[in-house]
């Protein structure tokens, strides 16, 4: 029985505004950097938003701003790597804020995020896989079911994470060249398994695999840690 690292679990219900969540996540990461708090794992959903990494090309956003806003979405440039992606209702988003230790291995962290997605999908009956020949993420044939994007704070603490399509409205992805790959599409658990896969059903399974894969012993985060996220709930 090997020791697991204690970690805080934040699972605010509803749709959490992207900006506030991003800001709160960075605050947690800075406190983790200073060893003030333990590792934490944030599990949530966002209202519709397109996010782009710093090197994403502008022309990967296919809809103009008016169209996006009319549909109730937003666009954000953020500090992770990678291209345009979409977050929205029906998509399980997991942000592990972990200290990587003296010799950070970012590639290993990404592989572990992929592993969490693979195991979660397998438990639900969907066989998915990595495709090192294409891009980080988790795939069903040529379609991505889980996007992964990570940033490190001072090379030592992880930010952002993974986004697994459960019963996401996939028409949103028509608005972007998803992950910068024009020849590849996206899919979801609902589409692959053939029944409505709600985030509530997938979330506990994913949390368990996050704990196993990253060697964490999660406990509920203190109220004042979760409060900023709860305050940002949109729906």
């Amino acid at each position, binding site marked *: 029985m090997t020791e697991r690292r204690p970690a805080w679990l934040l699972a605010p219900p509803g749709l959490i505004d992207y900006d506030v969540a991003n800001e709160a996540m960075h605050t947690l990461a800075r406190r983790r*950097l*200073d*060893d003030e708090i333990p590792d934490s794992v944030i599990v949530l959903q966002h209202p519709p938003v397109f996010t782009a*990494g*710093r*090197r994403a090309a502008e022309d990967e956003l296919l809809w103009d701003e008016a169209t996006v806003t009319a549909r109730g979405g937003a666009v954000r440039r953020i*500090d*992770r*790597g990678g291209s345009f992606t979409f977050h929205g209702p029906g998509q399980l988003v997991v942000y592990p804020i972990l*200290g990587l*230790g*003296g*010799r*950070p*291995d*970012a*590639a*290993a*962290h*990404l592989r572990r995020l992929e592993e969490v997605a693979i195991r979660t999908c397998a438990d639900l009956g969907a066989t998915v896989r990595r495709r090192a020949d294409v891009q*980080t993420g988790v795939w069903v044939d040529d379609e991505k079911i889980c996007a992964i994007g*990570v*940033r*490190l*704070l*001072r*090379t*030592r603490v992880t930010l952002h994470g993974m986004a697994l399509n459960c019963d996401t409205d996939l028409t949103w992805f028509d608005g972007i060249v998803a992950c910068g790959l024009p020849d590849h599409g996206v899919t979801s658990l609902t589409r692959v398994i053939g029944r409505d896969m709600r985030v509530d059903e997938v979330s506990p399974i994913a949390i368990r695999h996050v704990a196993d894969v990253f060697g964490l012993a999660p406990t509920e985060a203190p109220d004042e840690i979760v409060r900023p996220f709860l305050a940002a709930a949109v729906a």
Partner: protein
Amino acid sequence: MTSIQMPQLGETIVEGTILKWLKSEGDQVKADEPLFEISTDKVDTEVPSPVAGTVTKLLVAEGATVPVGTAVMEIDDGSGAGGNGASAPASAPAAAPAQAATPVAEGPAEAAPPAAQTQTQQPAAPAPTAPAPSTMPDRGPRSGILSPIVRKLARERGIDLATIAGTGEGGRITKADVLAAAAPPAAGTTVAPLPSVGPAAAAVMVAAPSMPAGQGEEAQPISHIRKAIAAHMLASTQQTARAWTMVEVNVDRLVHLREDSKEKFQANFGVKLTYLPMVTRATIDALQQFPLVNSRLDGETIVTPRFVNMGIAVSYDAGLIVPVVKGADGMNTVGIARAIADLAARARSHQLQPDEVQGATFTITNPGPYGSLLSVPIINQPNAGILSLDGIQKRPVVVEDDAIAVRSMVYISMSWDHRLIDGELATRFLARVKHNLETWDFAEDLGL
């Protein structure tokens, strides 16, 4: 001066792109303050500074993509010229401090104090005012935690802990880190100035063609100890006129004696009975009969000690080390066995004192237990010879009356310096060792 490199963020990440400089030339930086933003094919991050100081040079342009390990920036942190750099905490631990970068001398005849000699002084004289790091550079959240043994070792060996990047959790400097930084130099480099040991050897080492690691290969920097061993071996091979002689010894009686009495010996004396102490004792007698083999050449003077300090080569996790049984000529076989067992154990646990690896007048190496039949060792300078005890094997041999019988035999050989001794002497010396081993009754000397 600290050189900042493109950090290694994971084994498979081989290059990074500088997205944006966060500091310009001339800017002050604090420890752990972000210096620049990078993007790799896996992750983006900002890279923090390992030291406090002033940015002196940006070596690469924004937008440039460079391999991991490339120097991209220089920071003046007051550590003086020639420091070869801590990189961002993500990289492998920083290499040794300034002494590793001693300028390389051109001519081999110069008796410039070699880098090796600087190492001699440090462990020999633990200064009460050993440099206390006033500010420890931030190399991780726990790099400032100095455990009691780390502080004690640093104090005793005069090590500035600010120059060590810890390999412990969170960048903590561990006992092993300090021991690795302060390992007693391999024998030979600690003896009084040898003409051009360090720099000349270093010069030749540096001139070797470079073949960095490629696809499917791993790379790691060599340790101080390996560096010192390399320099010593190279110097010995270049400076001595090495010749080699071997004899075959019938050790049947010794094997029987050992088999019969090893348990009693262990019970009486608490150490295992091996052949090495017996061979050592026999060799000491031969050295006393042929003192020239116990001598050294100092310039144009032959120095002949009246005592025997026997170096015993010990292999351990960091490489090779030669602890010395001082005054071995005054010991019987039991005393030698005990001394060897103690030195070997402490060598392997990195607990030898500097004076315990200096001053050998002759050296014995014993690769036999590892399975060798015959070896050609390199002389442990400044000795005149080194004796190798190889593996004992049962062989068919010719005995009295031209009969053939099976006996335990062993090849004992010696590499010797032809500048000092000649073939006849070397051979007679070995013959004496052989004679001793074949005729002495060790039982009494072993207290059995």
